[in-house]
């Protein structure tokens, strides 16, 4: 494994991330009996937005100007922390999983600040909901990472994620299944998918993520869309590292399986979005606490087994 192969993962992420929302939308269209948007629609949208001009409202200030780019850079940096089932990340050191969580937090923080900066009440509402739900969802991510750290005995992200092999699945299938399901719920929650948030709704009162970027336009909007796609890639990668056991030694085959796995995850998200309805907002905290309960159960039982 030459050092160059480390960079392939993040590069693939940068290139292929906009494909994921396209796949999701295609799957939803197929379920609905339509033909739907082309799978490459994400790229078309990005190119279109980059060439457009930008409109700023009078009530927004400087924060609103640069927040989208802050979000984008944080997420890109987080992408470089992610390993790819056995291949280390280019940016890895001891304790870097905390950095991952915090980078995602910074991205969210910038988005929330921008939303508040517009002075619109809809976006303020969306911001408060987003913050509340992420407060409940973050423990899920952290406790899950703690579990993996306890299992492998290391504290580097690349190390702990690479320790999950087929053997681990045989040893502790229940706990890993709990972790997997909890992180899938987390994926849905953090990326504003049904059952937590409906990306297709046009009612501002029911939006969470969509409403925060309601006022962005042009390249700013492009940056937000791209950041959202990258975030989906990151969470998908986290999940895939759990599920795809370390298989053949050749890194190219691993990378191939990884890509296919990401597309499969996107398809599954599309299926979930098509089957389920969005939860009432009062029920979302229960769902998130439930996901946290799943991982915490796994962690406590793991500690009890010592």
């Amino acid at each position, binding site marked *: 494994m030459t050092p160059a192969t480390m960079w392939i993962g993040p590069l693939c992420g940068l290139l292929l991330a906009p494909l994921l929302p396209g796949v999701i939308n295609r799957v939803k269209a197929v379920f609905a009996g339509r033909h739907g948007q082309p799978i490459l629609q994400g790229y078309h949208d990005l190119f279109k937005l980059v060439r457009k001009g930008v409109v700023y409202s009078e009530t927004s200030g400087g924060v609103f100007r640069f927040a989208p780019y802050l979000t984008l850079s944080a997420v890109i940096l987080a992408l470089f922390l992610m390993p790819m089932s056995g291949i280390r990340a280019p940016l890895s050191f001891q304790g870097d999983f905390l950095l991952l969580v915090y980078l995602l937090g910074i991205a969210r923080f910038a988005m929330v600040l921008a939303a508040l900066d517009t002075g619109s009440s809809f976006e303020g509402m969306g911001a408060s909901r987003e913050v509340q739900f992420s407060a409940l969802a973050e423990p899920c991510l952290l406790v899950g990472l703690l579990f993996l750290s306890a299992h492998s005995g290391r504290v580097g992200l690349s190390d702990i994620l690479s320790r999950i092999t087929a053997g681990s699945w045989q040893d502790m299938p229940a706990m890993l299944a709990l972790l997997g399901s909890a992180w899938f719920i987390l994926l849905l929650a953090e990326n504003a998918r049904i059952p937590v948030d409906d990306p297709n709704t046009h009612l501002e009162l029911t939006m969470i993520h969509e409403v925060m970027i309601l006022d962005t336009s042009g390249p700013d909007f492009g940056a937000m869309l791209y950041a959202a796609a990258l975030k989906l890639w990151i969470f998908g990668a986290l999940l895939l590292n759990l599920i795809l056991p370390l298989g053949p030694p050749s890194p190219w085959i691993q990378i191939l399986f990884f890509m296919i796995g990401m597309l499969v995850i996107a398809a599954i998200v599309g299926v979930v979005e098509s089957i389920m309805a969005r939860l009432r907002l009062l029920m979302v*905290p229960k769902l998130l*606490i439930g996901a946290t309960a799943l991982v915490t*159960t796994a962690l*406590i039982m793991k500690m009890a*087994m010592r």
Partner: protein
Amino acid sequence: MMTLTVLLALTGVLLLGSSRLSISIRLVAIQGFLLGMTALWGESGFHAAGLSSGVSGMLVKGIVLPWLLLFVLKKSGARREIEPFIGFGASMLIGLLLMGLSAWIAWRMHLVEQGLSPALFTVALDLMLVGLFLIITRRKAITQTLGYLVMENGVYALGVGAGTEFSFLLEIGVLLDVFVGVFLMGIMIFRIDREFEHIDTDRFIELRDTASGKLPVEAGEGGR
């Protein structure tokens, strides 16, 4: 084995968060099944000595009792638990705390040196605490019955973990006690629903020590 204990712990936590009564009853049924399986499945695979108690446990706690409770539920027409003193989300978090507490207690007891399984002890203590918590904080009488069942499950799990070999008759005796107990509770819930038009035990305040005043005088009619 590990899988069974993890799933048992999971049912405990999920029970604290469910507000729909039929889901709660089904969770307790799953718990009964899993518990019977733990009796069958020792640390080292299939455990023939536990066959009788495991199978009877699975039958009674996994099928018969939940069916009974679902019947009572249907007759009484209740659907959901009323918002309890400690909300459902908070209950789940407290459930996680209780799980941590039992793990800590199990660790402090130095069980591995005595050849006992700390995982099973953790789950047993956790289920007992969850059962107690349900009885204390929930208001519907059916949920209190479920809490009692969960407590019994926890104690039974501890028995399995302690390796106590009760004879078959005694196992049947314990199961019979639990069965008749839940049966009586079910009858009473049915009557409570008819008499009080609800099964909200929080409104059971008529019997108390201060001068309550209005006692039905006709209670003395057939009195002896």
